[in-house]
């Protein structure tokens, strides 16, 4: 399985090259990776269904205990069927959908395969770190695929929204996963679920993880990014925003649900937001004219439904959930691909402009009808099988489940209504509109649409084909599962009656067209898109005000802020931590006193000096004074180097300042009293450093071990009796090599700075008062 994931990434790296040579065929080549993965996974299906699931581990940072672990179980296999199966189909479809010679081919094919690999990693990952990494990889792929080349503002906006919302959730999820892993003491998801930890931290962790799942699966109030992402090419939408990526949230919840389904902090947000999302999505879908946006809202609604079922936490509900995950992946990808054909052949997706396509493209119409009916829960299709199971599961649960059932029934009525709206809108004849002129729908593309659509029909008749897989996941919820099997016919019981009622109500809703009139009405404060916009605007405004206040653009102010921070933060810590009495002496050697006076007087005069040369010479005096202090301290080498360097520094200074005006140019001060503020600040910071020196050296007890080692072993180990030299050329020679490298770089840098010739300046060296205009001049 690790190989399969790696193969995706490697292939994705080569696809741009293939696309450059063979154009659209790159998609077909790209489809090989998911197709091979699918075949491989199915051939190993017995392993996934077995008692002990195959585990593979790759330790990529063993020193800090980071490893990538895959665990191939029932849920993973189900998701692989969707991710790799639909992925291969979509890639083949895209090969026909893309225009020949389109520049997007190399980019999109590579990204789609990369996405397929990331998704594969996501569903297989058994440790929280790799789960998060693949999670964010899918987010980034989605951003790049939605944004395309970012040529229009709408593309950029939609892509940014998708990225911001999902990565916000991703970061929250990371925090939650880490908290959970810390509480459980392991990063393995399977172990966390087997022995779920408890306590307040876990509650917080669970809520954070749910935030990640909700944003990814477009649950209220994070849903607006999904309709926005419909600006992506239709195959991308079919794959990412119907079959695979948006399922990641549902997958995450389904993955953790067996361990936490009893925790109110877990199921309560899931069912409340899930129901809200299901109803709202269906409601909004009823008003859409764009087929793709209609499907997007339908997806939101269905994702809400899936969330509710996981949140219910019973065996049958879980079975229904995974059945519907499979069914939804099949019918929704078929429908998106249908929309893709319509869009490509007719040039529009607006149901007000389409008419009579049903008669023109019978095959596609049949396939699309199968998919739509599966979505609406008509028998004999997989969607119906799943919905039957869902109603059954909610019917016999706790009292709260009956409440859920009511909501699910309402949402399903909307689902039926918008399904009919889609079917009639896309393929129905419209008396007021002339029949749409369109070329044939294309055999290959129609066939690709047909595969998932027909799969939904076949699986409904032989649910036994997938039931072991689905029931295998549901077994995690209950030790002794009830005797329920997926099937089309369970007898004349309440679920069937409810299904019939839902269909009739949905049909009536569609006929009366009542909902479209109501569906646009959402109270302002509840408008999620407005909320997103307001928070982004608020963030930008906050950033601007913070930057505007802190980044004043003046170097002295920055330095002042740094100094104040330096004094305030470590200073506060120091004051609170002083314990040891400090043993203070006036001086250690009387020679220090006159030297100190000399250094201080020279340093003080530097500040007052008006001529550059004076200031430089006084700095030299300071340096020589320090050298003398080194001698007093017993640092012979140090003093020698200090004297020599000081002389050289003086020479270099003089070389440079001979070209400068002899006096400092004191421009008008920005603030009249700035000088005193600066002086005060500098004095406080300087005193702070001195206090620091006293306190730090106060904790010193004799010669440290390292120094003692150097002093004792210098002669035997390096042959040098001068210990300082031994340290420089031997014990710490690596430092020395680094240091001389710095010297070489500084000399080279100085050479290129000085030898570069001055470019011609329009103002002949005059300093413009307004630096802003000067900048634009340079640019032009």
């Amino acid at each position, binding site marked *: 399985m690790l190989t399969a994931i790696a193969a995706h990434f490697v292939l994705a790296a080569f696809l741009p090259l293939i696309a450059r040579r063979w154009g659209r065929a790159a998609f077909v080549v790209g489809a090989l990776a998911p197709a091979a993965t699918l075949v491989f996974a199915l051939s190993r299906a017995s392993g996934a269904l077995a008692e002990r699931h195959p585990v593979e581990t790759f330790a990529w940072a063993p020193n800090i205990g980071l490893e990538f672990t895959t665990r191939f179980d029932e849920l993973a296999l189900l998701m692989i069927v969707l991710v790799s199966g639909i992925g291969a189909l979509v890639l083949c479809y895209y090969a026909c959908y893309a225009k020949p010679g389109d520049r997007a081919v190399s980019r999109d094919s590579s990204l789609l395969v990369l996405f397929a690999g990331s998704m594969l990693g996501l569903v297989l990952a058994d440790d929280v770190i790799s789960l998060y990494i693949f999670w964010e990889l899918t987010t980034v792929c989605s951003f790049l695929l939605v944004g395309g080349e970012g040529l229009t503002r709408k593309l950029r906006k939609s892509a940014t929204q998708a990225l911001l919302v999902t990565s916000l959730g991703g970061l929250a999820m990371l925090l939650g996963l880490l908290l959970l892993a810390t509480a459980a003491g392991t990063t393995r998801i399977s172990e966390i679920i087997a022995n779920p930890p408890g306590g307040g931290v876990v509650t917080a962790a669970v809520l954070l993880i749910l935030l990640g799942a909700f944003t990814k699966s477009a649950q209220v109030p994070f849903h607006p990014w999904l309709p926005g992402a419909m600006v992506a090419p239709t195959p991308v939408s079919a794959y990412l925003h119907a079959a695979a990526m948006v399922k990641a949230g549902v997958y995450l919840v389904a993955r953790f649900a067996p361990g936490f389904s009893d925790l109110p902090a877990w199921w309560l947000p899931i069912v409340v937001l899930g129901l809200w999302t299901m109803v709202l999505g269906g409601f909004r879908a009823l008003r859409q004219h764009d087929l793709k946006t209609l499907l997007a809202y339908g997806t939101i609604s269905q994702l809400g439904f899936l969330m509710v079922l996981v949140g219910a936490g019973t065996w049958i509900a879980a079975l229904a959930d995974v059945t519907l995950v499979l069914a939804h992946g099949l019918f929704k990808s078929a429908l998106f691909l249908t929309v893709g054909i319509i869009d490509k052949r007719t040039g529009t997706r607006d149901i007000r402009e389409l008419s009579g396509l049903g008669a023109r493209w019978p095959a596609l119409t049949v396939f699309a009808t199968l998919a739509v009916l599966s979505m609406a829960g008509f028998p004999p299709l997989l969607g119906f099988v799943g919905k039957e199971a869902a109603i059954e599961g909610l019917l016999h649960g706790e009292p709260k489940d009956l409440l859920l059932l009511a909501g699910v029934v309402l949402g399903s009525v909307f689902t039926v209504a918008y399904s009919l709206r889609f079917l009639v809108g896309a393929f129905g004849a419209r008396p007021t509109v002339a029949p749409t002129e369109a070329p044939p729908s294309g055999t290959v593309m129609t066939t690709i649409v047909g595969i998932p659509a027909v799969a939904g029909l076949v699986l409904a008749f032989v649910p036994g084909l997938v039931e072991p897989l689905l029931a295998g996941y549901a077994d995690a919820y209950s030790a002794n599962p009830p005797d329920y099997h997926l099937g089309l016919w369970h007898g004349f019981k309440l679920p069937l009656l409810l299904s019939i009622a839902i269909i009739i109500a949905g049909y009536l809703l569609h006929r009366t067209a009542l909902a479209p009139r109501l569906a646009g009405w959402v109270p302002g404060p509840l408008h999620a898109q407005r909320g997103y916009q307001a928070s982004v605007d608020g963030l930008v405004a906050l950033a601007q005000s913070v930057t505007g206040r802190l980044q004043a653009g003046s170097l002295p102010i920055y330095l002042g802020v740094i100094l104040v921070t330096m004094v305030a933060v470590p200073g506060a810590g120091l004051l609170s931590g002083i314990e040891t009495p400090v043993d203070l002496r006036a001086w250690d050697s009387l020679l220090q006193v006159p030297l100190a006076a000399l250094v201080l007087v020279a340093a003080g005069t530097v500040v007052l000096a008006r001529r550059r040369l004076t200031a430089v010479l006084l700095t030299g005096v300071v340096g020589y004074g320090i050298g003398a202090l080194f001698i007093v301290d017993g640092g*012979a*080498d140090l*003093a*020698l*180097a200090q004297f*020599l*360097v000081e*002389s*050289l520094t003086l*020479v*270099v200074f003089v*070389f*440079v300042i*001979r*070209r400068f005006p002899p006096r400092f140019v004191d421009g008008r001060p920005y603030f009249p009293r700035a000088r005193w503020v600066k002086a005060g600040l500098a004095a406080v910071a300087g005193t702070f450093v001195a206090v620091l020196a006293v306190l730090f050296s106060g904790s010193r007890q004799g010669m440290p071990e390292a120094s003692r080692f150097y002093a004792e072993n210098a002669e035997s180990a*390096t*042959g*040098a*009796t*001068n210990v*300082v*030299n031994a340290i*420089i*050329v*031997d014990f710490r*020679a*690596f430092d*020395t*090599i680094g240091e*001389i*490298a710095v*010297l*070489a770089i*500084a*000399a*080279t840098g*100085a*050479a290129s700075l*000085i*030898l570069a*010739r*001055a*470019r*011609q*300046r329009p*103002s*002949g*060296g*005059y300093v413009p008062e307004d630096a802003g205009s000067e900048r634009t001049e340079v640019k032009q």
Partner: protein
Amino acid sequence: MSTEPDRELERVPWAEWDRPRDRWLMAEHNCNTWPRSLLLEVCARIVFPTVLMVSVYLLFAGHHDAGGGFSGGLVAGLAFVLRYVAGGSAELAATVRIRPPVVIGSGLSIAVLTALVPALVGQPVLSSAIWKLSLPVLGELKFTTNLFLDIGVYLLIVGVVIDLLRTVGAGTELGGPGLDDETLEREEVERT
């Protein structure tokens, strides 16, 4: 070109072959932008070899006494500074024929190679070996491989200082604010 001195040697009478042909001090037209001081120039020329010797002494003495590659290199660098201050860039050019970055590079290479050689014989990088020789007259002679590191440091520092003289020193004699290339070239033409 390389054979030219030999031919010259052949033509020169045997008794005059070592007669100085160059002027010891620079000719007038080569002089720098600041006033010349004969005393300074002569002193610099006389002191120069001595200072270089001192620097080499410091380099080798570093093992047992104050000194080392840094100090030695700085002292040697100061010798070149003296020559430049006395005679300007032309004097410096007369002193140093090799390009300063080459000196820097060779110093750095020697230091890095010294660090890497122990790895070839299976020792950790930067480890050093000591050899002791007992010579009849000179007494005991001790030689350690980390001396090469010091030599590398010495060369690099000398190179850096000469390079600074070339750039910060000679390079800033020309140019100024707002001068474009043409002005600079004109300035240069006028000088020569």
